[in-house]
């Protein structure tokens, strides 16, 4: 996996959103004049529940359409040909009812690989993830942490340029979280761009170089980590960092 990623050319090096708006029941859930992601290796999107974080990344990675505005993947509209270049790891991993290995093989076969190629790459991906002992175990029998690691191995096996994480370690034990973070760090060194929604400030500090704070569907601040955590002058950011509830 690492070899492939080191050698690859990035197809979706950045993702932008312009004039994105989503309304539901007369309430504005997302209202962003502009956002650009991909400059930093890892951008963390933080903020209180209901701030619009998940809505934003679901829109940016093409899972849902905004009511208005547009999403650009490296300057052009998302298309099926680049579908595998943008991944998303959900909070609750969704695995098919087959073995861990077959879950990864299934995803790789979608890229047009032969059964042999995909099996060989899938085995490599699971070995990289330290999951070689549970390859043949039905995915439904795995623990939550193992399932998320299989989901990550599947996502990384597709060699995405951008990977979104929607609180991917929120339901995962600390040991699995550590393994996942280590794997993400290795992937980032190989060129992967990461955008993660997280409530875990410690994780943001460990992984991110850039922070986007959201509140009420808007971006309050987008700054390098260093600035956000130590030098921000934004009053809302300061309140959030102080642990106050933003309403």
């Amino acid at each position: 996996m690492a070899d492939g990623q080191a050698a690859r050319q990035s197809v979706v090096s950045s993702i932008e959103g312009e004039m994105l708006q989503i309304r539901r029941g007369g309430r504005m859930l997302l209202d962003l004049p502009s956002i650009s992601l991909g400059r930093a290796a890892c951008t963390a999107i933080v903020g209180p529940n209901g701030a619009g974080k998940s809505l934003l990344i679901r829109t940016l990675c093409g899972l849902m359409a905004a009511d208005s505005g547009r999403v650009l993947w490296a300057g052009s509209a998302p298309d099926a040909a680049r579908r595998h270049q943008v991944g998303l790891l959900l909070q609750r991993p969704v695995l098919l009812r087959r073995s861990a290995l077959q879950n990864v093989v299934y995803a790789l076969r979608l890229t047009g690989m032969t059964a042999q190629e995909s099996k060989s790459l899938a085995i490599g991906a699971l070995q990289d993830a330290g999951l070689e002992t549970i390859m043949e175990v039905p995915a439904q029998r795995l623990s939550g942490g193992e399932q998320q690691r299989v989901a990550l191995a599947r996502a990384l096996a597709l060699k995405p340029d951008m990977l979104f994480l929607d609180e991917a370690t929120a339901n995962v034990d600390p040991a699995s979280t550590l393994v996942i973070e280590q794997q993400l760090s290795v992937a980032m060194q190989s060129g992967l761009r990461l955008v993660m929604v997280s409530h875990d400030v410690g994780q943001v500090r460990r992984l991110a170089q850039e922070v986007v704070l959201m509140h009420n569907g808007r971006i309050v601040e987008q700054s390098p980590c260093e600035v956000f955590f130590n030098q921000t002058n934004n009053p809302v950011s300061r309140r959030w960092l102080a642990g106050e509830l933003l309403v």
Partner: protein
Amino acid sequence: MQSFSDALFEALRLIIAFDGDLQEIILLSLKVSLCAVLSGAIIGFPLGAWLAVTHSRLRPVLVTLTSAMMGLPPVVVGLVVYLLLSNAGVLGPLQLLYTPAAMIIAQSILVTPILTALTRETISVLHDQYDDQLTLLGVSGRRRLQTLLWEGRHGLLTAVLAGFGRAIAEVGAVLIVGGNINHVTRVMTTTIALETSKGNLALALGLGIVLVMLSLLVNAAVLGLGSYMRRQGVSAHG
């Protein structure tokens, strides 16, 4: 008229001896019902899966129609198929009336709505669960349906067993389109009806016992499957 105990004794003797007539009737029953379920599955699986995932405006109409057709009265289905296959009917030139093929057609019409509705229910649950992930993986169209059907294989097997249960126990439709002709279209249910009316309770009872045993086997298979799936951590709906 035989007494019940005589009839029961004779029935058991026929079953144990695996009487030739009994054997022929049982095998034809199984052949007709299995073919009907196979036809129903070939139509019902993809149709049910499509109904589960489509946003077509026809969906509510088709869903209501398939659900309503689950309760189709067999004699009405038999009558309609009879009219279609009779010499004056649209399919008359095929000369299928009073053949096992006619019985398969009638039972397929009864079983297909069951398989379609149960497939739609199974796949709907799975689709809710997998929709985002399959979209992220770029899986759409026919491939999405194939994936969902494979993921729902356990639930679909339950649907097949339910369809088989309906087909094997059905009497009205096969009686009308098959005619209950000896050594040609005589199946368990039609024979039971005929032999009872003739007073030959032994054969009727023997077939009744086999039919009940088959029905029990089907139900045991459904229960066993459910238990197996629970052990495997897979829900009964796929």
